[in-house]
């Protein structure tokens, strides 16, 4: 059984698209996700652990959850849905991620087109990696693909080498 990463619909093995929402299951390698050399990734990881605790900006009042992009200082509120897909939009991609990180140099950071999802769930949110090219790390730990991991306020995860902190407005 294939479970659609976008809508959770189940399709038979061998299916190429989700009949429910149209997500393509096989990715044509025309625009592959930029591979980050492992040494560089390791280096970044080390650098991150040496980093002092980043300053946590206040969360916007009208959002219970938001994403803080560590490098650029941008805050993206998560509103209206219970589950958000994260990735970057590319041309002729049938399904756009709910949170498009394209404008924040996601390609250069090695973010896949459908990289991961965040599902709002009490008491935590759940972070799931979609078997992305460069993987997802949570607080320095690499996530197994397609397995939801609990994530809470202040946690930093990195998609490729893009670092994002989850902010929860309590």
């Amino acid at each position, binding site marked *: *059984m294939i479970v659609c990463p976008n809508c959770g619909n189940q399709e*038979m093995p*061998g299916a190429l*698209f989700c*009949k429910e929402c*149209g997500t393509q299951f096989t990715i044509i390698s025309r625009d592959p996700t930029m591979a980050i050399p492992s040494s560089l990734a390791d280096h970044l990881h080390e650098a991150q652990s040496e980093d002092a605790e980043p300053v946590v900006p206040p969360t916007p009042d009208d959002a219970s959850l938001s994403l803080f992009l560590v490098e650029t200082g941008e805050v993206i509120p998560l509103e209206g849905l219970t589950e958000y897909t994260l990735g970057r939009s590319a041309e002729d991609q*049938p*399904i756009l991620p709910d949170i498009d990180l394209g404008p924040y140099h996601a390609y250069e950071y090695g973010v896949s087109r459908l990289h991961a999802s965040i599902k709002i769930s009490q008491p935590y949110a759940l972070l799931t990696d979609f078997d992305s090219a460069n993987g997802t790390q949570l607080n320095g730990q690499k996530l197994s693909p397609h397995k939801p991991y609990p994530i809470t306020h202040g946690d930093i995860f990195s998609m490729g080498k893009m670092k994002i902190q989850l902010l929860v407005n309590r």
Partner: protein
Amino acid sequence: MDDLTFYDRLGLPRDATQEEIRRAYRQLVLRLHPDTNVNKGETELFIDIQQAFERLSDPKKKADYDLQLPPEPKVVSPLNISTYYSQPSLVRLSEPQVIYTLLELNIQPDANLWMSPTPLNISLVVDCSTSMQGIRLDMVKLTAIDILRQLHPDDIFSLVKFNDWAELLIAPGGLADLKSAEMKVQLLQAGGGTEIFRGLEMGFSQVAQFHSNQRINHIILITDGRTYGDEVSCEKLADQSSALGIGISALGIGSQWNDKFLDHITSKTGGICKFIPDGGDIRNSILEEITRLGSSLTEQITINYQTTPVVELSTAYRLQPDPSPLDPVSPLILGYMPRHGTMSVLFEFVIKDIPKNVTPFVMAKGILDIEIPRHNIRTKYINRIIFDRQITAEPVSEAPPAVILNAMMILLLFTMQERAREEMSKGDFDSATRHMENLATHLLQKGEDNLAQSVLNEVAYIRHNQSFSEEGEKLIKYGTRSLLLPARSGENY
């Protein structure tokens, strides 16, 4: 008939299975039985077939016959057949799986040298009910006159008008008196109801009267309304028509006609069904249809197929030359083959279980028949089609061929709207609108802004009225279908 083998008489390859022999026989009997056939000399043909069947259906007699059979003559088929699969191999799984197959037919380029144009035997069946009054009927009249003037001397043409009954306006045969024929068309008046069966029946008897496998035999129905109560008769007529090799196409004008019904009728015969929206180009649509028939090589491509018991052919969709869903039953009627160009059909097979130790695993096998006019004589070419895959222990990961992916991507849009329509008919408005919105997103990404806008308008309409607007429903259905046209997909990829 002397030089024909028993296999030739039944239109079978020499490796035909008993099941295939029985099927071929049944179909020929339906067509040629002395009680039903109309043409002279076919009783003789019937006897020949009877004789062939008696020999081949008995495995012992068949084996004896096979021994004394001269070696098969080498036939150069003008047809190229290619098959593509979404996966390089299959893996045994504990659950059902799906695989996509694309069948592509091409005429060898040099074959065009010896292929002669096929004359037409067509009947134009025109709805003259009250609603056709005005621009609709005027345009049809003008176009009919255009057609009369452009016909080739070898073509056979008839014109039937119908409302509550049918009337033969122009009888088939030579158009000796063009002036009076034109006059008759000019004087056509609208009035009354729409009884499609009456019109089709009369059109059918005209085409059947001059039916010949040296021609393209076709009925073109032009209507703007719904027929009531005679759907079953129409369906039977379509089956009869299909068995004789007479195609039925329909052009629906405006939003009131019954697209589901006409799609069904026409696809039974390998014909096409087209939507002409209000303000659309009626004249061009009719002329295009005539041109299409004129440039086709044959209307008679069929596949007699059988799937392995654990396999189901769940969908068959013709991508080219005219995008349309096909009824996934054997014999599969593929429709007409253009003289220049390609026919491609996408199949979705659901495999419930793969038996142990079988490789290659045959999903389906069949016989593809095509009749091609060669120096004025139509020759029947029989092609063996096998859909199979090797079974491997581990999945072989390889991107599906681009032809399949591209076709599927657009086919998906069509299936999404079909699904929304189905949900609407069940009263599930929430799912329907959600699917429509998904569809609109995909269309926008394809750069199909107009169609996407129509879909969004329709979503708003549904929220308000809990039903599709008749115009919008057809616009979306035929709009998504036409995305598959080669010229369009060429732009997109």
